[in-house]
């Protein structure tokens, strides 16, 4: 079973994303910000990361850049899940190696389709 790391400072959003992913057959682990997210990656076994942008301590974009600098995690696909739609931020994420951008409130079926495309069922 593919394991997805969901990073968001909102526990409600984590719960909702997690529920949608679990119903689609994925295992889910959670982190409350970028620092926790990187720590979870160290434990290994993560197939994909779904990450908020605005978070305390370390933003999603900073976490993305850190992750991509680490050769062990560089190939893990990252999708940003955020209320942000600013072209500059989207461009920055794309440049840093993000695989996608989902605007909140998310639609579960579209998100699951995107996850399926990136890591398979």
């Amino acid at each position, binding site marked *: 079973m593919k394991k997805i790391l969901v990073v968001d400072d909102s526990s409600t959003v984590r719960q909702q994303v997690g529920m949608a992913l679990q119903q689609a057959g994925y295992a889910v682990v959670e982190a409350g910000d970028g620092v926790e997210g990187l720590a979870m990656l160290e434990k290994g076994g993560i197939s994909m990361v779904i990450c908020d942008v*605005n978070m305390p301590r370390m933003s999603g974009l900073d976490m993305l850049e850190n992750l991509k600098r680490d050769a062990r995690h560089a190939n893990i696909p990252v999708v940003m899940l955020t209320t942000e739609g600013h072209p500059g931020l989207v461009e920055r994420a794309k440049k840093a190696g993000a695989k996608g951008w989902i605007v909140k409130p998310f639609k579960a079926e579209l998100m699951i389709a*995107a996850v399926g495309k990136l890591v398979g069922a």
Partner: protein
Amino acid sequence: MNIVWAWLTKSNNGHALDDAPGLDSAKLRKMSSAISDFREKLVKRVRTVNETTSNEVKEAAHFLNAVVISARAYVADSQKALSRLQGEGNDSIGQLLSKQSEFLRKHATDMSERAAAQDERARNAALAAKSIADLAASIERLAGEARLLAVNARIESSRLGAQSAGFEVLASEMQRLSDEVASTNERVGELAGRLGHDLPWIAQHARDFRHAMEDFSATAGVQLDETERGVTELRMQVTRASKAGSAAIEDILRASQAALSHLQFQDVVAQELRMLDGQARDAQVQALKSAEAEPAVVAEVPDAEYTTMGGAEAGSPVTASGEVMLF
């Protein structure tokens, strides 16, 4: 405060206060203070909205999750029951019915064959009893002839006198033997008669039993065929019902997800308030800058700290919610 509101509702290019007429340093400080008050209320409001929304969404998510879990459990149970009925696995109802049908058919056939064999043997035994009776009649006839022969021998012996004493003894023995044969044969005849009376009855019952078993075998076969047809029909109906149930559950899951997605919109309220606060903060900083206030005064401006559900930065419009872009 009207100026503040006017500034807040304009596009925030960071220079609007410089162009405002009649704003001296004191007025700007006063305005900064008003903005600060406004921001504090705003922060309080954002926190309340966040807290309420978070609680409500969590509660809703909790209930929807319970619905989803129950629905999933129902589907799993239905599929398990269906799988038992469909004949997957050795303990399935389908397999058990097939085994029982096979067992009943085999035993019905076996008993029918045994009944046929019993019928045949009973008839053979009746025929044998009749043959014995015929043989007994023959022996009776032979014994009668032997007795007659002994009587004649005795008559001839008496005519010869003393010289035929040995022949007389032989004739007497012959008479005795023929009498014993006749007596034994009489008992054999009696037994053959009894057998001749009983065996046809046994043969008739064996025949009746055979017909009954053949009827039972045929009826059981028809009933088992009907049972199997019924089970097949039941399987089809349960499969259809299960599919319909699964589809309904999927609808429930989709509706639950949709409900949760709609609940997420509540988060946007707090985010919009936060954006508004970001603009107010910029206005406050701008007012203090315009008033040429000391840096320490700027530092005293309370910073907004939120625990928004999704988080948003000031000035970033929330558009195309739910949109997914893959690079």
